[in-house]
């Protein structure tokens, strides 16, 4: 049957797997965005830039301090998370009383500063970051040659997404977070420090972006603009998944990665707009997104 479409099944499975790998990045990034949006009601335009910062910190750790990939996996999210906390405390928190669009505009400005700054210092050709030796090489799965590192990316992203989802939906801290989103005043009166929770949430959200950056460093080029076009696709993913739905963000991320992968096989020229087309269709049919609830 596949021969009718002109693609042998092996090639198709290979592309699906590649799509899943890309979807891992979409999922991680939209997870961070969804978490931040859920708690702060802010669209973090700087998410792409912070992803880029994560990748650069990983590169820097390797170049200057000789600290390899495993260090980077731990340190980069922390560094990016701290940066996020600074941003939140000094600038973003001032805007909560105002219309939430100002938060979007502020993070847009911050994204410009970060990207422009790195571009100015490091240029645009990108830095090399080698695949960690533990994952060098790959395995022939029969239908394609799968580099080990890419397999690792899928595994790690699934683990992180599950862990985050679990933390938010199933733990006590997560329930405080969700409650504080619904009714901050009430939760504050219970003695829970809501502003601190908000700050930490932003920090964790962007730490996820930083982690995605580290994971991307060995396979995509580390350059100042790596986040800027990606962020728009991630926005579309979050809209499709449904704003405010963490589950929706993650599932949509993987799904859209796979769909994009399929498009690359059948209609490659359209592969960079397929996510947007799907967004349009979803919006027309289900305005709240696939898993979203009306806010």
């Amino acid at each position, binding site marked *: 049957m596949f021969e009718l479409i002109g693609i042998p099944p092996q090639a198709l499975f290979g592309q699906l797997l590649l799509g899943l790998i890309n979807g891992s990045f979409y999922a991680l990034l939209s997870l961070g965005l969804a978490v931040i949006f859920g708690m702060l009601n802010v669209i973090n335009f700087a998410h792409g830039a912070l992803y880029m910062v994560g990748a650069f910190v990983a590169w820097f750790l390797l170049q200057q301090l000789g600290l390899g990939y495993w260090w980077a996996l731990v340190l980069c999210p922390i560094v990016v998370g701290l940066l996020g906390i600074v941003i939140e405390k000094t600038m973003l928190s001032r805007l909560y009383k105002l219309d939430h669009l100002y938060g979007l505009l502020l993070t847009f400005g911050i994204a410009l500063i970060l990207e422009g700054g790195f571009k100015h210092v490091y240029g*645009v050709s990108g830095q090399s970051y080698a695949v960690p030796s533990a994952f060098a090489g790959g395995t022939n799965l029969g239908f394609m040659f799968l580099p080990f*590192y890419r397999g690792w990316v899928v595994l790690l992203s699934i683990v992180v997404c599950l862990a985050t989802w679990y933390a938010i939906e199933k733990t006590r801290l997560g329930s405080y977070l969700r409650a504080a989103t619904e009714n901050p005043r009430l939760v504050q009166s219970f003695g829970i420090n809501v502003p601190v929770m908000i700050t930490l949430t932003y920090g964790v959200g962007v730490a996820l972006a930083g982690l995605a950056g580290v994971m991307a460093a060995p396979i995509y080029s580390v350059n100042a603009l790596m986040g800027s076009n990606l962020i728009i696709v991630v926005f579309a993913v979050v809209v499709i998944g449904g704003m405010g739905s963490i589950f929706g963000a993650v599932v949509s991320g993987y799904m859209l990665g796979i769909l994009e992968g399929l498009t690359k096989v059948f209609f490659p020229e359209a592969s960079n707009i397929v996510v947007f087309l799907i967004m349009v269709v979803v919006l027309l049919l289900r305005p709240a997104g696939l898993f979203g609830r009306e806010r």
Partner: protein
Amino acid sequence: MLKKALLAGVAMSAIATSAMAAGLSGDKVVVGVLTDLSSIYADVAGKGSIAAAELAVADYGGKVLGKPIEILTADHQNKADIASNIAREWIDAKGADVLVDLVTSSVGLAVQGIGGEKGVVTINSGAATVRLSQKECTATSFHWIYDTYSLAHVTTPTVVAEGGDSWFILTADYAFGHSLEGDASNVLKDLGAKLVGTVRHPFPSTDLSSFLLQAQASGAKVVALANAGQDTINSVKQASEFGIVAGGQKLVALLAFLSDIHSIGLELGQGLLVTTGFYWDMDDEARAFSKRFFEKFGKMPTMVQASVYSSTLHYLRSVEAAGTDDGKTVAAKMKELPIKDPVLRNATIGANGRVIHDMYLMQVKAPSESTSEWDLYKPVKTVPGAQAFQDPKQSGCALAQ
């Protein structure tokens, strides 16, 4: 008020006087380096191009016909409308006599048109589009070191001759990619080699793995990349990840600059075949020049930057020989005088402004073969200009019929 601020920020000389007679307009020669300082071509051209122009002026002695040479610089940010505005302003208000670098095809075409309209010389070192020397040529336009036609006509026949007779082309889906793919497939057809398949990837793309997988599955002996810049860098890195070269296929980048290869690194880029118009280590003259460039700038010159040096120098010589900086006169002189510099070999200029010179097919070294940071290429073949570039008579340029 506002204009004063603009002038102060840009002009190197405080007063612009206008002199009437034949001789130099404004009593000086103004060289405008219009390049991309902050966007995707900043490493290919950018500050290096400015350094190259300054080096050329310094090497020429800083004066021509006894009058000073002024250099203007600006960042067009890869935007044709910003470039247009700056070009117009430089010509109308600052007396620019020649515009160099002009990287990015849309910028190159726009500025060349303005230069043609106003009789100002435009020498394009950076843009790839062969349209610059075709129907859209002007009496004062030059395309100096490379174009899509020559890239295809150097790389393809040489690779086919070495046994690469079945090709798969991975193309960036925009005008530049299409034209590069078109030129390459025409050559393949002429040579009787097989084009097994092509796939167009969106521009720009961070992940080319899907498309590389298709190339790998096609079984073609040669996987060719008809893309540039970050797309090429990503393609090469990911090709290495998926073991394309290790699996026995040849990987060919139809357009890659020294700065791209430097960014990719030898570990990932080894074995890649690249065509260039200049390489710093290609012979003694090139080495001597590049050493001085390195001392000034800190990096080895890409072919675009070397081209800015060469074109600026030739322009200045032509002004001296012509005794004026009138655009059309100098342009005619430039086409007349032989080009002698450390950058181009066996160079002549066609009536359509196309510089025809030796081009080189190079291969990226393996890490073990490299002895220094910039020791990246080993030569494979030198192709004479007549074989590499389009015959001016067939270009469609009105001046060359």
